[in-house]
Every structure is written in structure tokens, then in C-alpha cells.
């Protein structure tokens, strides 16, 4: 059992999903409420990682993070480190990769709020910010939580993108799914089974939690 890989996986999933909470909310809110040109293109781009093969996404991210690329150079000038094959690079890639899993449920939840409710709040004297905090956020809460948990699970299970840009550095970029792949290649069935069961258990628990939570919210 590769405990270090489990730790990397959990850490990556946690920081990715927590970063996606504000990023996803801002994107979902702009898409749900904003009126701007290219809105459909923006929504399509956010959804793209859902349909693109992870290797293709990983390849483009790898090219983009190369030490000769603008992003790579900028990151190097700030941190003195390379973006590709680092935990930070993996974190950044995971945000892109899990973006649709965070944005979509949040977007649907915000879109489901009747426009009259916001207008009623404004007519009651609530500012737009207060309307968001007191009315929209509580009403979209189940969608926001679903986005958070889904992006956590999705990051936990990512493989292709990690392989492309993270490589297989123990304690840095070797996640549990990479470790499973390694074990299978090394014919270590027992370890592969153990680690797969752990991922399966986490997936079952979190997805059940989402359904239970949403069901309870709907009953109010």
C-alpha cells in the first residue's frame, strides 16, 4: 500500500476542489446572470474538459507549462521552480480538468432560482451583494456543494492528465491512480486491489453523501 500516493491524491483533490469553490462560483454566476457576447463559447470552453481525451488536454497543458512557454517562464520567475512535473503544475491542471464538474452543478442551481426572487429582494431594499449572500447562495447551496464534492472525487480519480504533466515523482506527483497503474504493471495484484478498493470506497461514500444531502435539502 502506497500511503504517500494516497496522501498526494487527497491533498491534490482537496486543494483543487477548494480552489474551484470561488473560481466555479464566479464563473457560474457570470454565466447565469451575465449578458455578454461569447457566452456560449465561454460555456463550451468550460465544458470542454468533459469531452476532451485527458491525454489531449494533458498534452496541451504540458506544452503550455513548458519552461520555454510564457506561463512556465512567469512561474519560474516568481517561484524559481518549474511548473511542469511539479505539484503546483498538477494543481493547476486539475483545476482546468475538473472545472466543468464544479461549474455545471453550480450554474444549474443558480439558473433554477426564479428571477422574481432576486427582484423581490431588490424591491425589499437588499443590495446585489446582500441578495447574493442571503438569497441566491442559500438557494443554490446544494448545487454548490455538489460541485465541490464532484470536483474532489473527479480529481481524486484523474489519471491521464496526471500522467502527461505530472509524471511519476514519489511524494510530489505520484497519485493513487498512478500507483495502481504501476502496481498492475509490476504484477502486484494485492496492492493494486487494496488501493482500488480505497478509491472505490471514497467514491461511494462521497456520491452517497451528495444524494443524501440534496434529498434533505429538497424536503424543506
Amino acid at each position, binding site marked *: 500500500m502506497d500511503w504517500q500516493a494516497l496522501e498526494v491524491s487527497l491533498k491534490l483533490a482537496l486543494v483543487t476542489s477548494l480552489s474551484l469553490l470561488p473560481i466555479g462560483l464566479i464563473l457560474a454566476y457570470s454565466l447565469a446572470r451575465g449578458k455578454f457576447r461569447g457566452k456560449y463559447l465561454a460555456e463550451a470552453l468550460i465544458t470542454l474538459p468533459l469531452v476532451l481525451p485527458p491525454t489531449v488536454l494533458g498534452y496541451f497543458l504540458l506544452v503550455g507549462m513548458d519552461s520555454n512557454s510564457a506561463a512556465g517562464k512567469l512561474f519560474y520567475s516568481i517561484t524559481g521552480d518549474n511548473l511542469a512535473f511539479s505539484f503546483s503544475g498538477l494543481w493547476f491542471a486539475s483545476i482546468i480538468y475538473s472545472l466543468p464538474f464544479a461549474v455545471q452543478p453550480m450554474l444549474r442551481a443558480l439558473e433554477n432560482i*426564479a428571477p*422574481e*426572487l432576486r*427582484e*423581490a*429582494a*431588490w*424591491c*425589499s*431594499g*437588499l*443590495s446585489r451583494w446582500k441578495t447574493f449572500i*442571503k*438569497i441566491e447562495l*442559500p*438557494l443554490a447551496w446544494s448545487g454548490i456543494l455538489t460541485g465541490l464534492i464532484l470536483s474532489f472525487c473527479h480529481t481524486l480519480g484523474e489519471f491521464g492528465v496526471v500522467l502527461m504533466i505530472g509524471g511519476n515523482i514519489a511524494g510530489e506527483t505520484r497519485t493513487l491512480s498512478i500507483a495502481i497503474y504501476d502496481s498492475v504493471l509490476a504484477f502486484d495484484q494485492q496492492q493494486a486491489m487494496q488501493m482500488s478498493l480505497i478509491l472505490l470506497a471514497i467514491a461511494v461514500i462521497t456520491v452517497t453523501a451528495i444524494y443524501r444531502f440534496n434529498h434533505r435539502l429538497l424536503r*424543506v
Partner: protein
Amino acid sequence: MLDVTIKQQQPIPLEVQLQCAAGEMLALVGPSGSGKTTVLRCIAGLHKPHQGLIRSQTTWFDSNHELNYSPQQRRVGMVFQNYALFPHLTVMQNILLAMQKPQEHAVKALLEQVHLSGLESRYPSQLSGGQQQRVALARALARDPEVLLLDEPFSAVDKVTRRKLYLELHALRRQLSMPIILVTHDLDEAAMLADQMCVIHQGKTLQQGTVEDVLNRPQSLNVARLTDARNVFEGQIVQVEGQKKLQWCEQLLEIADTDFAVGSNVYWIIAPSKILLHQRRRPSRGEQENPVQAIIDDMITLRGITTVLMKVTGHNPLLIQMDIPEHVVERNQLQRGEHIGLSLLQSAIHLIEQ
């Protein structure tokens, strides 16, 4: 006093002018899609018209000075068509949210005013339609509004509840001192509750006046049709013995003094409730005024009022309608096919330009 002038071409054309004095209720009536709700949204600041002036105690919108207050700055109380109560908040929290100085005892006083005491801790989904409407009304009043706007507030409740809510609103009105605008497509509702009526059609306000005035003295055929005027006929102004009279088929009707020139063709209307039935056994007052003989074609009774459809004797093919209390029908033993005498009182005849 609320003073509203709105003009715009897009997204729907609007040409609106209306006034509502403090303590008065103005019913904005018109068919679906006539722009009633958009006018209300303009007043509330939820829609910005291209041109116009909206003034309450202060000016809220003035296109000439590029002044446009947000809904938060306007202090309007709005009751939405589906009430738009916040589903995750209790009745108490819904109302507290709209108060500038949130105080629970003030909420309780408001709830008492709308007959909802004791339901403070319920959620909107646990309330009936009528109760939801009362919460929406209490929330609109919680802001101590300069203007109260009601967008079809009775359309989402059943008929029995509606009747009860009419009486409640009528009683509540006496305690309110701000201008109230009621949007509705129900003329009876408007007539029952409002002091003033404004008819709107295809985004254009056609006539504003007292309810009595708009219903009985429409300025145009369009207003007459929109307010469901039932006795609309064509006629001509003629001069007989130096007096202007109205020629209607073979009948020659006396009319009040009019500016219409002799020879001009006009529409004329008479309210079905203002036609006088000649009693069988004893003469009624006004019998000598525009007497007409007719045959009863049909009779329909609804809630104690009978609408009698009659054919005027002679070559006049048109049906004329008269509303009389059911007991009058019984006392006079009116039946289909029977001959009766009527008087079309001259004060009730209203002429409209053709």
C-alpha cells in the same frame, strides 16, 4: 402623488401616462400582453424605459436628466404575481429582511394587519395560496413604501379565497396612505377595489378616470370594447324641432346636450344596469323617457343578477341587454318571448365618435 410618463419602442412599445394620488388605488386594466406588468416594473425600477418621468415624493426616473434610481433606492412595495416569497426563510424572516430597522414586534403588528398572526415560524411552502399572498403584502408594506404596487395579486388563488382577500384588501386600504397601483385583467376586480381606472392596450394608456367614468363613459370604441361594454350600437345625430336627437334604426332617442354636429354618425352605449324596466302593475318614474318596446329573447341569471337579452320591436335586428335583480324578474313574471317596455334614460346614453 405618483406621476408616471413612459415612452419606448423596444422591447415592447409603450406610451404610458398615469397619475395616482396618495391614498388612492388605481387599477391598471388591459388584456394579457398589453404591457401592464412592464409599466409596474418601470415604476419599481426593474425595467428602464427609454424616455419618461417617474415621480413619487422625489423623482425616481427622468430621462432628460439621465436620472435613474435603482429598485433599492426607490422604496416601493411590490407584490409579485406569484408572490416571490423566499422559500428558505420563514414568514418572520421574509418580512424582517425587507425592514430597514428589523424589529420582531413590528413584524407581528404587520402580520396582525394582514390576519396572519401565529404563522411567523412557517415556511412559504407550508402556507396556502391566500396566506402566501398576505405574507407578500406584509413584506411589501414592511419597507414602509412610498408606493404600493400589486401585480395581479389575486390570480394565483381560487375563487372562494379571492373573494375573501378582496374584502381584506378593501379594509386594509383604509389604513394605507400611499398611492396603490393594482394591475389586473379582471374588470370586476378593478371596479370593486379601485377608485381610479386606467385602460391600457398594446402598451398605450387609452383613458384614465374614475371607475364609473371609464366604464360608463368610454372615450373611444376601443375603450368600450376593452371594458366589455355590452350595449354598443351605431346611430346618427339628427335635428327634430330644433333639438338634437339620436336616430337608432326606427327609434328616435332623446339625448343630453352634445357637441356632435347634426348628421354625424356616432357609436352610442348604455350600461345594462341603467336601462329602466316598465313595471306591469304601476307606472315607474321616467317611463316617458325614450320608451322602447321589446321582446325577451333570453335570460341568464348569475349571483342574483339577471341579464335579459331583448329584441327591440320593429325592424331592428339588434339585441339589447339589461341587468336587473333576480327578484324583479320574479315579481314581474318575465318570460322568454314576452313583450316588455323599457326606458333608455337619456342621462345613461353615452355617445362616442365614429
